[in-house]
């Protein structure tokens, strides 16, 4: 954006082919010349203002008289009553003011001259001179050591504000947490039972024999409902800890014809009689997926429409998700309940930078 080659362009607007006819003559309004019209306009404006006052009083009446739970034509009576009276009170003020301005206030157009945004030449010179004198007196240009150390100091002095943000998370920053869910809570501990798969909301464990072909169940770890059985405490599955575990452990259970299943490599025995389990958390940005197309075993994410084939190792068949849904290896415990054979073998949910470390 250099100024070097602009000489070829017009510096000033050229003369118009039609001369500027100048401001049109002022037109008198009826309210300017007819005292009756003027009086009428005055009454109109005043009545808008009075209307506004009435609406404000009605607002207070409704506030006192109408209960929160009363309804009118299916609407909350209080909300409608308060909103309409308040709205009309405001509109009365607004319409009145504008009507006043249009009908009764002076309507002569005024001309004001503009001035270029740049300051006058003499001001620029004085300012420039002051800048030079000030800079010279500070000696900042003659003393590069001071200038450079000053800039260095200024650059660094903001760092504490950034550094202190590290403790926005007072807990662990280890990415390893992303790899573990409650399904593997008892992995490596032979004394504790494998995690049973429980129905979401109800909390009952699921017998493998309970499911019909085509059944889809939303599931969570049984530990949410019976933490002691898995060596956990009530506090581990409460409040925001529960939310964190839910956001990783949410599971989809689907029973299909065993012949329909095309198991992934090394996952030949991850199903139990055609029952397969996949993470419910979308590998795109982490929405819970639950729209199931029964005939195709396709699972659709309602957020961004990534579609996964549960008969084909959770493969992405459509949409923006970059990876298949993580599959959970199923097993049955001695009482016939479905359990997780182990934790997920990969992190669930959206991708992150370090994700491939594990797969290498």
């Amino acid at each position, binding site marked *: 954006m250099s100024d070097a*080659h602009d000489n070829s*362009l*017009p510096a000033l*607007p*050229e003369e*118009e*082919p*039609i001369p*500027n*006819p100048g401001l049109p003559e002022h037109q008198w309004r009826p309210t300017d010349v007819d005292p009756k019209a003027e009086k009428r306009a005055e009454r109109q404006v005043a009545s808008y203002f009075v209307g506004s006052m009435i609406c404000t009083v009605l607002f207070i009446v409704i*506030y006192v008289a109408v209960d*929160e739970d009363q309804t009118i034509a299916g609407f*909350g009576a*209080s*909300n*409608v009553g*308060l*909103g309409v009276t*308040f*709205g*009309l*009170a*405001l*509109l009365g003020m*607004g*319409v009145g*003011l*504008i009507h006043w*301005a249009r009908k009764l206030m002076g309507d002569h157009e005024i001309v*004001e001259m*503009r001035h270029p945004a740049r300051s006058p030449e003499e001001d620029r010179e004085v300012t420039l001179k002051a800048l030079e004198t000030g800079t010279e007196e500070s000696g900042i240009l003659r003393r590069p050591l001071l200038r450079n150390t000053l800039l260095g100091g200024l650059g660094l002095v903001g760092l504490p504000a950034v550094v202190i943000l*590290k403790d926005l*998370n*007072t807990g662990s920053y280890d990415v390893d*947490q*992303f790899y573990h869910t409650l399904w593997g809570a008892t992995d490596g501990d032979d004394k504790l039972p494998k995690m049973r798969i429980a129905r979401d909301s109800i909390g009952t464990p699921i017998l493998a024999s309970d499911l019909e072909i085509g059944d889809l169940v*939303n599931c*969570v770890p049984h530990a949410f409902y019976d933490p002691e059985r898995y060596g956990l405490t009530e506090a581990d599955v409460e*409040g*925001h800890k529960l*939310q*964190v575990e839910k*956001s990783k452990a949410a599971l989809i259970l689907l029973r299909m014809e065993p012949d329909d299943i095309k198991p992934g490599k090394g996952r030949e025995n991850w199903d139990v009689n055609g029952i397969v389990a996949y993470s*419910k958390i979308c590998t795109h*940005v982490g*929405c819970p997926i*639950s*729209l199931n197309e029964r005939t195709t075993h396709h699972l659709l994410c*309602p957020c961004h*429409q990534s579609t996964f084939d549960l008969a084909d190792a959770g493969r992405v068949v459509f949409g923006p*998700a*970059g*990876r298949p849904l993580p599959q959970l290896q199923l097993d049955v415990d001695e009482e016939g309940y479905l359990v997780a054979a182990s934790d997920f073998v990969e992190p669930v949910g*959206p*991708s*992150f*930078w*370090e*994700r*491939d470390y594990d797969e290498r």
Partner: protein
Amino acid sequence: MSVETSQVADTNSTTPATAAKPSRVGMVANWADERLALGTAMKKQLRKVFPDHWSFMLGEIALWSFVILLLTGTLLTLWFDPSMGETTYEGTYAPLRGVHMSQAFASSLEISFDVRGGLLLRQMHHWSAMIFIGAMMIHLLRVFFTGAHRKPRELNWVVGCLLLLLGTIEGFTGYSLPDDLLSGTGVRAADGFMKATPVVGSYMSMAVFGGEFPGDSIIPRFYIVHVLLIPGILLALIGAHMLLLVFHKHTQWPGPGKTEQNVVGYPLLPVYMAKAGGFFFIVFGVTALMGALLSINPVWKYGPYDPTKVTAGSQPDWYMGWPDGLLRIIPAWETHLWGHTVSWNIMIPILIMPPLMITILMLLPFVEQWITGDKREHHLLQRPRNAPTRTAFMVSLMTFYACAWAAGGNDIIAIKLHLSINQITYFLRAAIFILPLIAFIVTRRWCISLQRHDREKLLHGYETGIIMRSPEGGYSERHLPISDTEAYKLTARDRDQVYVPEEVDADGVPAPNGRINALRARLSKLMFADNIQKPTREELEEAHHHVDEEHELQAAMEGVPADGHQFDGIHTVDEERLRSDD
């Protein structure tokens, strides 16, 4: 020891205090002026002139919506509890009684059901947020289409773009606060966006959420960002926006008596104080009626946030729709480089496109100025047709935006129109590239056609709709000259000049920056070469001469029965004689 007070000076001015008792208003003004020098500060401001046009009101809607947001928002903070602590709901709304939820959600329910007028406040706050951002966008389009972003207002344009960006973030942090299922899903997606950031993503997510998603920190953190940090910056930027507006004085449409050197309109006191003040009440009143009658964000229907649940048809607020749409139609691009996951399917729509769009917007005035080389101040607005390429460029951006936005509702479109969501997605993947291109070409040619029409009107007058038959039997439409005012308005614009780079300078040395100048020349040609310029004075005179001749020929038929004027649809024609009656 009493002091004779009548002898004590009651002013610092050099002239002695006068005996005359000033009016009450005068006393207040004097008191204030002696402390604040308001006399000088307000000398020119009280009667400051603002030009009148309906389109200048759009920015005002944004301004007043912001004031409404501050007022309703401040009241809402009195009841809202931004805490993620778990509680069991025992309030008035029966369907959710006994449900575990965060205190943020419980207090949102309390505001909606137990605080009288609380729901009204919530709905007004949400509606005015929608209007705030919508008005900013339409105001931005108005400014750009009329060339009001040109020198000296480029910096105010940049401030405006920042306001739009911050307003959007403010909206997102705001609608996430109730911690309901819908907004929680949005926050969940935001976690995915952060994690997709190369190198620092995982740590960013863990820092923002105070550990793993969702943690118990995000709502209080969003809260302070939403009620203090961003509103503070917004307020400062709006202040700067207004100060610059006052300093530059408002642009105006060209017309009789209006020039680049003046501003014509009504004074601030009283006309614009009444009109703008009245308009504040109107925007406020309409927002109140919307809050009363139009339901928005009924969080009690969504329920509290639960990471295992989601509803179909989950849509963010409208201004977040376009990045969400890009996120839906992007192919599943994820690459694995040197043991790292790079999620292009998230980075392109969310981390690259929105910042890129804002950067393009902010650079527009500077790029345009580089191409045109126009360093003059501009205070007269341009009609969109008189800058065909610029207008076409913005329409092209709008078309891109519209495609992305439609993609954000692809599930709704599929359900309402019984279409396949996959086909809508495939269509939009192509349309988002093709349609903006078509829009550019069509808009540009459309503008040029309109310019040609203006030129025709200037040279040959307007079409009267009266068909004349010549003695030879030929038919032609009669044209009449347009009024001087109208003709002046059509010619009150600059002549465009295509930039031609100098190949060699006076000494035969090739000009520096040859390649960059060639690019500038190509863009300048694209911008200006096809435009229809206004006629010169000679062309106008010649055309008028020609028209006069034609009128002379037709004058013989003036007043003769059925010269055509009778059948203009205004006069009654029952008694008219036709020429054949003679």
